[in-house]
């Protein structure tokens, strides 16, 4: 087949795909609105957006029981109530009542200042506060403990006005360097990766399955078009869609939730397209199995879950051990996500991540090669 024929066939397939998409409002809605929008909005709403800091414990009803009834314990209450971390401290409970109420949803923790609290502090001993917590709520215990310690770090029972400056309790202070990112900023890279992978897989693997079921793959198969042109045409089509998706996610993140990526838009879109290509290659391989559309979607869902766990989406790969680690370090998506994260959050130049990028590129080429071969030998499965 000549080069010009290949290019013209590829272009014809790409344009045809867009034409079919244009006629299918549901597909447009799902592909370009529901998936990027839902995912990004859920992250934004859940985390409060970039730059938003909110205290996890601020609005949680917590019982405060003062068994000491001293000046010091009163001052503890005042500090906590003013702190911004404990807006719903409820007094008046008895300890046994309060503990019994935990788990009903009326209160989530019980702070108890024991008798003798002030005495201990005035004698230069450490004062103990006990917190009974409904820790069936994940991370609540550590959040309450952290906020209590933070607010009482320099508590001095002898002073009516507590020190304003947050002092250092330890002789060795840790000076933290490195830009801090909000949960939204970090989550954004996860969402971008998820959206791209999820939608791309559906469009490619699901797309070929659909064509196979509807008989249009057979139509292409009896025409002079080659398999390479079909794959190339669908690839360009999906790259176009992914560019739009990446822009939607970025626009929503920046203008809706105040995210500030540390790299330019072109880099973000470029990296997204690279991830899309990788996923497309894999999607083509799966499409050769001749599964129905619904089965492909289920497979896709399992794949995304798998990547979720092992690709550094929600758990840093450094934390994985043994077999999990081996899997993680062999997944090209993990390297892609790492590159996106470092480029978007830290602004690390791409050339410094050449190894990771190379791994992704090589994997993409390998996937496409395997896909071409597998689709060729699976031709009958797709046209029957």
């Amino acid at each position, binding site marked *: 087949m000549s080069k010009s024929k290949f290019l013209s066939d590829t272009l014809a397939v790409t*344009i045809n795909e867009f034409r079919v998409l244009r006629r299918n409002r549901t597909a447009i809605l799902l592909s370009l609105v529901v998936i990027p929008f839902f995912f990004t909005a859920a992250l934004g709403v859940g985390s409060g957006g970039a730059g938003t800091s909110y205290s996890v414990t601020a609005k949680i009803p917590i019982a405060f029981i003062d068994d000491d009834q001293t000046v010091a314990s009163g001052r503890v209450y005042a500090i906590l109530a003013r702190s911004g971390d404990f807006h719903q401290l409820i007094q008046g409970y008895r300890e046994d009542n309060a503990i019994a109420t935990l788990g009903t949803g009326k209160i989530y923790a019980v702070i108890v200042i024991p008798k003798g609290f002030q005495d201990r502090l005035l004698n230069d001993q450490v004062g103990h506060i006990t917190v009974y917590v409904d820790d069936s709520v994940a991370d609540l215990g550590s959040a309450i403990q952290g906020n209590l310690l933070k607010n009482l770090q320099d508590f001095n029972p002898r002073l009516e006005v507590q020190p304003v400056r947050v002092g250092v309790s330890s002789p060795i202070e840790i000076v933290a360097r490195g830009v801090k990112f909000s949960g939204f900023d970090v989550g954004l890279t996860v969402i971008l990766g998820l959206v791209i992978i999820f939608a791309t897989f559906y469009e490619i693997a699901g797309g070929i399955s659909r064509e196979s079921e*509807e*008989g*249009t793959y*057979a139509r292409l198969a009896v025409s002079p078009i080659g398999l390479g042109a079909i794959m190339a045409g669908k690839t360009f089509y999906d790259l176009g869609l992914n560019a739009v998706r990446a822009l939607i996610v970025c626009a929503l993140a920046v203008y809706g939730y105040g995210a500030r990526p540390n790299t330019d838009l072109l880099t973000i879109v470029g990296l997204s397209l690279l991830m899309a290509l990788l996923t497309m290659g894999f999607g083509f391989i799966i499409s050769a199995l001749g599964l129905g559309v619904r089965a492909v979607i289920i497979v896709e869902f399992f794949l995304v879950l798998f990547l979720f766990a092992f690709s550094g989406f929600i758990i840093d790969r450094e934390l994985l051990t043994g077999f999990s680690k081996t899997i993680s370090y062999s997944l090209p998506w993990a390297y892609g996500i790492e590159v996106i994260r470092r480029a978007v959050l830290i602004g690390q130049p791409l050339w410094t991540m050449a190894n990771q990028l190379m791994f992704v590129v090589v994997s993409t080429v390998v996937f496409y090669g395997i896909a071409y071969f597998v689709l060729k030998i699976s031709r009958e499965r797709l046209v029957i």
Partner: protein
Amino acid sequence: MLEKAIETHNLTKVFGHFTAVDGLNFDVREGELFGLLGPNGAGKTTTVRMLCTLLEPTTGTATIAGYDLVKEPAKVRRQIGVVSEGVMLYKDLSIEENLKFLSKLYDLSGEKADQRVKELLEMFDFREKAKRQVRALSSGWTKKALICAAILHRPKILFLDEVTSGLDPQSATALRDFTRNLCNQGVTVVWTTHYMTEPEKICDRVGIVYGGRMIQIGSPNDLKRKVSELSVMEIEVSNLSQETIDKIRSVQEICNLRYEPPFLRISCERDDELTEKMTKTLLSEGVKIRAINTLEPTLEEAFIKLTGGEDEIDRILGRNDTDRQVMKERSK
């Protein structure tokens, strides 16, 4: 002498343990309208799918428009058009959009493509339907759309697989006339059908496929002559014993006998006295006759006749005595 547009050499297709097409050898001349006739599951569609490169033959090959089917499938595809189940158009696009897309794949350039598309839409009288999505068309119009797509690039060979099924009689007639016209213009057509009466209306020659094998090839007149010699009688009886059935079976002229209570179905060589013979035999055995009807032969009965009887079928299909016994039990 006309060139052979299609020539098959031991074309075989096996799916797992099932042989769908078994050593098919036939040829089709240029400009011929060749019918492939056979019941459902005979292997007609599988044959067509192999010839249009959708399926790869397990063994054997074919020459299509001078190109080897197995070695040069891409070149074969340029020469053929296909209307077959499972080879569809994009439902979300209009027929016009589908044709324009396909024209690009067949290297029809801009103006030529537009012209050809317009020509086809006018030929088939699409008018405003041309802008409608394919999914919104009725099955008849969809079929027309499929034919347009098949002949868009003026192929040398056209495969029409069960193309009249689901069409009303007028549309079916119009389609047959259209196809005949194409052949007159030099297009070779392979027409598959399971309707006995169809090949005689348009085909130049007919190949009978049964059990994946080509049983017979001949002109429709030959076919008709053989079938017209066949007579089928259905007698509604009661209390028919096995002894009586065996006695009737022993009558020389009978080709095939099947008893599905209360109907006794006999196919035989045309014999004006046969009805009287049968009636006498049954009455002498004390069988009560409720009704006697003369029927058209079924496809299988016709095949049995055309292929020289059950023994011939068994020989061709390699059925042994056990198989025959089973089939006999089933026919009681």
